């Protein structure tokens, strides 16, 4: 399962990096709020975004909103430094953490294939640090901009 952060998508849409378009990327609601019609001023930009395959994490069979919200509360308080309500920044990062927590520590393991690999593509150092702190060794963190 691949989760893509807004900063990577933005670079891709601007033509600054390449992504494998055969991949399917999973988005949380907070990510969609950042990404939905991202900029969307130039048609070239739109076309690039539309060339990608997205799925909503909430539509996935193992998604459990009750657990997700519990995780969300945990991480928004623990990693409060990466969130700014003033500029409404960092909420997508919290949603990524909350989702991954649900995947790597499923309450009901029969609902989720814990062997399935999780990869997060991001250039955000704060998010990378939080992901390492929470899920080191359990997920892959990928930064296409650095590569």
């Amino acid at each position, binding site marked *: 399962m691949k989760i893509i952060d*807004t900063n990577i998508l*933005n670079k891709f*849409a*601007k033509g600054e990096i390449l992504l494998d378009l055969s991949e399917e990327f999973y988005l949380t609601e907070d990510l969609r*709020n*950042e*990404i*939905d*019609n*991202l*900029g*969307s*001023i130039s048609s070239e*930009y739109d076309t690039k975004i539309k060339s990608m395959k997205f799925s909503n994490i909430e539509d996935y069979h193992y998604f*459990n*909103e*009750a*657990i*997700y*919200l*519990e995780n*969300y*509360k945990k991480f*928004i*308080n623990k990693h*409060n430094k990466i*969130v700014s*309500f*003033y*500029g*409404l*920044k960092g*909420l997508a990062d*919290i949603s990524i953490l909350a989702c991954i927590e649900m995947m790597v520590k499923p309450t009901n393991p029969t609902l989720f294939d814990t062997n399935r690999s999780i990869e997060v593509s991001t250039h955000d150092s704060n998010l990378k640090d939080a992901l390492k702190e929470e899920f080191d060794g359990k997920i892959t963190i990928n930064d296409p901009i650095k590569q």
Partner: protein
Amino acid sequence: MILKSGIISSVELDNRVIETLLNFYPEEKLSEHKVFKNAFSKGSITFNELKDISEKIHLPWQMFLLNLNNLKKELENIEANRLDKFPKNLLVIHKRKGKGEITSKRIIDRQIRIQSFVTSQLPDSFVCNFSGSLKSKNVQDAVNYIINYLSIDLEHFRTRDSAEKSKNYLIEKVQSQGNINVSQGVRTNGILPEIKNTFELFKSTSGFVVKDKKIPFIFLPSEINPDENHFRQIYTLLYLLVVIGMEEYSHAIESYSFKKVKDDKKFRHMNDIVSEILLPRSVTDNLATEDINKNLVNRLKEQYKISYTAILFVLRLRKKIDKDIQESLTLPQKEPSLFIEVKKWFAHPHISTSVKKFCGDIAFNKVNTAIKNNAIYPNQAQMIIFGRFRKDKWNDYKTKI
């Protein structure tokens, strides 16, 4: 209180957090909203209910998940931003005598957020040269300086066929020549929260300045205060311009009494500058007291675009009339009708029109440039211009930028 996903209990929310958040804008009485009343009585709220109500009251639902300490830190940041922009006394005494209500901190916070974005887009070396430029200038020098600095053509200003057009001419000059953003209250397109008695609540909002070394903001209540007709807004605009020119940010008008203006040296000086721009002494010097009647005052009002009440006030300050004549010429006060105003603003302008008015031209252009250049994420742009996520309006908005 338990947060539920449908009927399934998810996580406990701290009631103290909910109460603190709902009381952050106490004048809005958010805790009296039926959704929260029900939630407190049931001891639970569903995630969908929380998201819906959060959108209506313009508070991100995620804030309700914070623990008390983290929430306090967030609110302290907002409070610190207020104190950075407003002297403490002004935040406390933003009351207008007889009305009993306060200038909305919600509007203040929104304007500070817009301003923070605008200034973040400008180099550190950028300064508003008008700020402080009126210090130590006498009335006539200050008047000449303002007119020259803003390239105001007074003849053009006075000969517009309505006070609204004259006001808009001044606003355009203040923004384009003065590099001072002018934002205005709007009651369209849900720019302000959809709460009970929204406009009853905001109608007492006064004009104010959000100070900044790069781009000061002037806020005019405009649509949200039916008491503020265009003539009064012209006066308010110029007065707040003088506040910036004098850097007298702690100056607040609690009551506009003759005695206060006459006796308060600073107040008098600032008032004299505005009066001299709008109704020069050269016009009133030759007036004979016996010629001053309602017809004359009405003629001056239309000719010079200054309110009837302000003319009487100026004439008394200039000793052309006394208190008795002022009172005899004063028109009976009409209670402004919200109903009429609602009809007037029922025009349903495009979302971009409402945003432009609420943000001001300078801010509107800066945000739009950032959106066009993908220099800002849509949710951040929406937070600045709408005060919340507005997926429904966002696509509409983008078509016009």
